[in-house]
């Protein structure tokens, strides 16, 4: 929970802006709060709102949310082997996946610390719903969310997380590749798809790092390999 706390505060500010913006597209304060409490996925909620704001229908708004959330598919696949229990229990535990918790719970060996995931998500949930409540009821006093720069909070939040969690030259390279894939697709793909496609950058991991290659070179042991560099 402690590790999730800074993200809960930042997420709360983001949720505050959601509470304000939702009412601009015709959500009641209660509807905005209910949406945050049940959906609990910031990017999807903003995506659905922006479609409604552009005059889109229910189907288009839900599709935008689904595409925005599609990144949780590879995250869930990665997390799956670390979750115990039957299908229903695993499905329920999978609901704890939000970006910050998922990234923090990932261990070096590809497994996940599920209790860190649950704890970090629990406190972010409180921040998310709480922030929406504040935004929904004080929106009129705050004024224009854009004027306050609240729209910068969401990308800044993920940038802080990226800087915190990215270690090593290869990870930095993959981050750059993921960013490049996403930007290249922005003009041609619907919102959400560029981020999903960027996950392909992680396939770089299939190429073994140079030091891992040596034992694979043949049936020779490491000692012999040193004798035949």
């Amino acid at each position, binding site marked *: 929970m402690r590790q999730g706390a800074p993200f809960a505060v930042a997420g709360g500010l983001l949720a505050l802006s959601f509470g304000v913006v939702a009412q601009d597209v015709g959500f009641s304060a209660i509807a905005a709060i209910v949406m945050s409490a049940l959906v609990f996925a910031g990017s999807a909620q903003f995506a659905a709102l922006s479609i409604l704001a552009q005059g889109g229908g229910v189907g288009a708004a839900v599709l935008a949310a689904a595409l925005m959330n599609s990144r949780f598919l*590879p995250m869930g696949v990665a997390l799956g082997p670390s979750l115990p229990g039957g299908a229903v229990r695993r499905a329920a535990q999978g609901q704890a*996946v939000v970006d910050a918790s998922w990234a923090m719970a990932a261990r070096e060996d590809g497994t996940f610390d599920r209790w860190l995931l649950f704890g970090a998500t629990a406190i972010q949930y409180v921040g998310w719903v709480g922030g929406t409540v504040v935004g929904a009821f004080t929106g009129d006093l705050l004024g224009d969310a854009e004027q306050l720069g609240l729209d910068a909070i969401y990308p800044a939040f993920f940038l802080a997380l990226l800087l915190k969690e990215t270690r090593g030259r290869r990870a930095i390279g993959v981050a750059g590749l993921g960013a490049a894939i996403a930007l290249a697709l922005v003009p041609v793909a619907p919102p959400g798809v560029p981020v999903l496609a960027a996950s392909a950058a992680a396939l770089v991991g299939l190429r073994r790092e140079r030091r891992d290659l040596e034992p694979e070179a043949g049936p020779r042991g490491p000692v012999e390999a040193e004798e035949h560099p």
Partner: protein
Amino acid sequence: MSTTAAVIAGCVAVTVAIKAIGPVALGGRDLPRRFDAVIVLLAPALLAALVVTAALADGDRIDVGPETAGVAAGGLVAWRSGSVTACVVVAAGVTAGLRAL
């Protein structure tokens, strides 16, 4: 059902389904070891994509605006101080300041 209620119900359904698929399909079974490195690298790939699309994309256009500068300033603060809260506060503050000019 009103538009608002339908959108909320639809978003809940797709979000729950998407988050459930991976754990249900792969729970209790290990991925081949060679995918370990792929999984570790998913986080930087997805996070970097989220940052650039949120800071630079406006619909289907690439758009450099006050929020881009704000996010960059926030990133600098996060890098120097390690504080997420300071990062988002600076990002919002710089963005708001530039818009007020």
